[in-house]
């Protein structure tokens, strides 16, 4: 494992789940919970005769950024594509629950605690959703995570970080949508049905999953930023994700409601406007929507460095 100081400049995309978890919080503050030495492996994979991982492909733990306790969940795409099964799901649930319990305790014992001193949850998604080997247990895990997100709302901000190789798709796409804030890099991808499945169901003419440029144009960070599906677009380094997290950690807790993309009547109305716009526009490509949002030259905008892109890009107003 690299030293913390060298981790920061590393590409978030290139890093593994543990490197991301360690680098997101301050040097030496990360304690892994239910780590590989605990050997909580998937009973389902074992039954099927498949290889298991001692951390079940998810790193969970707690660390600090400045004064803020950060409960970290970091998915590992190199193990079965980051798919979530029973054990990994339970680790996610346990971590969010621990954050909520901790927030309750602070509220009770330290009523004068500042926002900065209250816990947050950071989830680095790298997953296509349910681990099919575990079927119902995997689905149930998704439901339980959603349940915890509802409990955390107004209490513990949950921040999604998406900048991994696999991206965030399937059931976990719903989970990410239900968080308070989404931070992406341009290489992060977010969606519900993954590109291969769309092609399989609707045909190559509808969506050619081998066309990576199309896939990234449709599900990648830049497009999600224009669409308002993600809140912040950062450079592809652990340091950049960490800096965004640190900034959010200081935010007054009530501000997080304003960052949500779904979850209120107002937001539902806004989403419906988006649906109506899609029906009216019949866009053939994500770039059509960029133009509609007020970006006359989407091709150069897509190629611009991230900082310039952020400065120039007009986001879709609904």
């Amino acid at each position, binding site marked *: 494992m690299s030293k913390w100081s060298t981790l920061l400049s590393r590409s978030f995309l290139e890093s593994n789940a543990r490197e991301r978890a360690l680098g997101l919080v301050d040097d030496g503050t990360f304690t892994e919970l239910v780590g590989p030495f605990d050997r909580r492996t998937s009973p389902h994979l074992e039954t099927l005769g498949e290889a298991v991982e001692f951390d079940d492909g998810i790193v969970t733990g707690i660390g600090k950024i400045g004064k803020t306790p950060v409960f970290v969940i970091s998915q590992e795409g190199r193990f079965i594509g980051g798919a979530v099964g029973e054990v990994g799901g339970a680790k996610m649930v346990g971590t969010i629950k621990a954050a909520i319990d901790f927030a309750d305790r602070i509220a009770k014992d330290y009523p004068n605690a500042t926002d900065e001193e209250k816990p947050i949850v950071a989830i680095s998604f790298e997953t296509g959703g349910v681990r099919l080997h575990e079927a119902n247990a995997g689905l149930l895990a998704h439901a339980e995570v959603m349940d915890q997100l509802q409990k955390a709302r107004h209490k513990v901000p949950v921040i999604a970080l998406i900048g991994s*190789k696999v991206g965030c798709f399937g059931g976990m796409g719903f989970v990410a949508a239900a968080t308070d804030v989404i931070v992406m890099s341009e290489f992060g991808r977010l969606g519900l049905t993954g590109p291969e499945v769309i092609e399989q169901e609707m045909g190559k003419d509808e969506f050619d999953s081998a066309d990576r440029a199309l896939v990234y144009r449709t599900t990648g960070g830049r497009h999600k930023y224009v669409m308002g599906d993600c809140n912040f677009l950062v450079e592809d380094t652990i340091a950049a994700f960490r800096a965004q997290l640190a900034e959010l950690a200081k935010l007054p807790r009530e501000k997080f409601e304003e960052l949500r993309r779904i979850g209120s009547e107002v937001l539902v109305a806004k989403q419906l406007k988006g649906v109506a716009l899609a029906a009216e526009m019949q866009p053939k490509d994500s770039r059509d929507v960029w133009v509609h949002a007020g970006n006359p030259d989407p091709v150069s905008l897509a190629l611009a460095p991230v900082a310039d892109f952020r400065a120039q890009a007009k986001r879709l107003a609904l």
Partner: protein
Amino acid sequence: MKTQKKWDNLATDTAERMAQASRFIGNGKRVEPKDIVGLLEAVIRPGDRVNIEGNNQKQADFLAESLLKVDKSKVHDLHMVQSAVPLASHLDLFEAGIAKKLDFAFGGPQAGRVAKFIKEGKLELGAIHTYLELFGRYFLDLTPKVSLICAYEADREGNLYTGFNTEDTPVIVEATKFRQGIVIAQVNKIVDKLPRIDIPAGWVDAVVESPRPFFIEPLFTRDPALITENQILLAMLSLKGIYAEYNVSSMNHGIGFLTSAIELMLPTYGEELGLRGKCCTHMILNPHPTMIPAIEEGWVDTIHCFGGELGMEKYVAARPDVFFIGPDGTLRSNRAFAQTAGHYAIDMFIGGTLQIDPWGNSSTATANRVAGFGGAPNMGCDAKGRRHSTPAWLKCGAELPCMEDQIGKMPRGKRLVVQGVETFGEGREPTFVEELDAWALAKNAGIELPPVMIYGDDVTHIVTEEGIAYLSRCKDMDTRMAAIQAVAGYTEIGLKAKPETTRRLRDAKIVQTPEDLGVDRNRATRDLLAAKNMRELVSWSGGLYEPPARFRNW
């Protein structure tokens, strides 16, 4: 009494056919796309040997599809002679009974259907060749009567520009036209003036502007983002244990992630080993995008290309000191010449394979796919006709303990043929096996010989994550088999290795582990790659490389 013997039957036959076709051919040999089926029916006779230009990359796809539409009562039982059959239409011809016999070199995506059709009797297999072997037979006993070829552009007279992707066109046209055959070309565009003339109009009988550009595939692009740490370890071993050990200056890199890793590690690990200027100076290679960093860092003197590679056009054109660029400023690839250089002139071939047997024979065949050979066997073998010497070739030859049994005290060199494999390949299938699937394929498809890509006596080195087996240093088959076992890891073959034998082989430098070579496994991380993704390759190229959409994540 001497009878008058006729000596121009071939030309007369062609003239008769062309007379029937003349109503379809306009000014500048131009044929309208709607008339192409009629033209083919006029010039092709049952049983003809026909070539559809099917290269590794560019494809005469419109002509292939048009041939499929001919009246089967007029055109049938054709004998197809062509490099590759990667398009569905190539095999549909056999399904429809238009074609009957096939002589080829490479199956590609249609490999499964080739095997099935042979078994069902829909396809009579002539032979599976290497490219050079098939090109040779074009000038011997497999000369096409009609060739359906492919070019970028034609001018108003019928001259052709095959440009960057010239590939097989010259050899096909020369064989066909100089035996009085018929050459029909599909082009993407008819223009007033060509950048240069690759095929003169006099050798072309008809030109059709295809309704859509020909199909072309970026087969030689490997995304650096997908290179694994294991492949990086193999690349470190290869660079230190082979490139540096033998000072290999000229070579071909097979297609694959290991060789891509090596290419991307020349400016990092290779630089550290001091290999710049010594290794990889002369290469026979398609324009691999992963070569960009090494080229930019001044490693490479010369690259000659079999074919082009989509997206590399501008970059290659801007590096005329390295590539073979015409007076017009664009590359001309040429498979026949590159394969000739690959067979006779290079010191090393390095590539991967699917399976290796206990004796070191290797094959990419699976039980139900006739994948063919392409060019690898010509490069992955010791060219017996080679007479010039280089230090790497001499050193490898000098190592051979068995050479004396064959030619006594006479010194002779040997080509380095390196197989770089992980002990377990895709889908965790073992690479080292008791019996190659090639045997099952030979039985299933009724082929005389199991298709072996590289024979054991040609392989000089096997590199795995366990280390390097220097087969060139083995005096007999027992030693060779023990050396292979020593690097075969946890495969059934590898488990046969005896620790005391392996120890002896290591002491004799016949087997070297990463530790023996001083390669630190912990350094085998993606940080050693000069470019970690496609975008970094674009940056290295100064924006000249334009990756196809399927490789872009922007």
